[in-house]
């Protein structure tokens, strides 16, 4: 049950096309999804509800985009959705086999100063291709929660839902300093990845 005294929080799922956003969306929202037309456009998007830890979330599956400098109508809608929901949590979805491309849009979103969480999806494919992704390290560098998922099997979905409430505003200056080794690693305590969510 959702706690009706808590305000509903909007979660925008953002990422490159084909990273498994819709598959993750379906896993998180179950059967209550609704397809709508974004006002004044021909672009459809899907929204649904997730209740986690007595908090109700409206999850929006934003059209896939490579960047926030739109190059077509779907990308335009993605940009508008982010602009129209400044208080939303942005769930940035990566394909674990194409991390570098995901990072591009991720950093663009982080520059907007929004609350962020990252899902690294397709972990099964990465594993099959012998690509390993150090999500704990990624979380340390980015300073936002990073969760490994496989939407098709459901692995990691539970944790992803639980981590939404720990979403953080990323600090790009700090990210650069961490990458340059100018900020020493925080001592991790009790399995903490140092996302700062606590």
């Amino acid at each position, binding site marked *: 049950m959702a706690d009706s005294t808590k305000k509903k929080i909007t979660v925008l799922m953002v990422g490159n096309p084909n990273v498994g956003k819709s598959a993750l969306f379906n896993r998180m929202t179950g059967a209550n999804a609704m397809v709508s037309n974004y006002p004044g456009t021909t672009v459809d998007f899907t929204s649904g509800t997730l209740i986690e830890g007595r908090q109700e979330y409206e999850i929006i599956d934003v059209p896939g985009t490579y*960047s926030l*400098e739109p190059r077509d109508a779907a990308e335009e809608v993605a940009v508008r959705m982010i602009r129209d929901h400044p208080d939303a949590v942005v769930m940035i979805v990566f394909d674990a086999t*194409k991390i*570098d*491309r995901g990072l591009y*849009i991720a950093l663009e979103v982080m520059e907007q100063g929004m609350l962020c969480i990252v899902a690294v999806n397709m972990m099964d494919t990465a594993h099959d*291709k012998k*690509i390993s992704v150090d999500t704990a390290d990624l979380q340390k560098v980015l300073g936002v929660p990073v969760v490994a998922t496989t939407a098709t099997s459901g692995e990691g979905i539970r944790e992803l839902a639980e981590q939404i409430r720990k979403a953080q505003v990323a600090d790009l200056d700090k990210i650069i300093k961490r990458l340059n080794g100018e900020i020493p690693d925080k001592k991790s305590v009790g399995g903490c990845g140092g996302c700062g969510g606590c």
Partner: protein
Amino acid sequence: MQKKLLELEFGERGVVREIRTSVHDLNCMGIRVDRELKMVTKQPIKGPVVVLLGEMQIAIGLDLAAQIIVDVIGKDA
């Protein structure tokens, strides 16, 4: 040897050295300076070229492919 991406032969591998058009448009697709790529398909009749970048295949129009300069580093059979 430097070439335009457009001029890479089938199976040839190169490293991107220079982007003479919107860097943003190519970067967000994963193509950036120092990235290694391989020519996998050239479509006939001025069709796009398709390059392999890690796990990604990316189709690029001829005009754009003429604006990307690569160092040829080898060729796969």
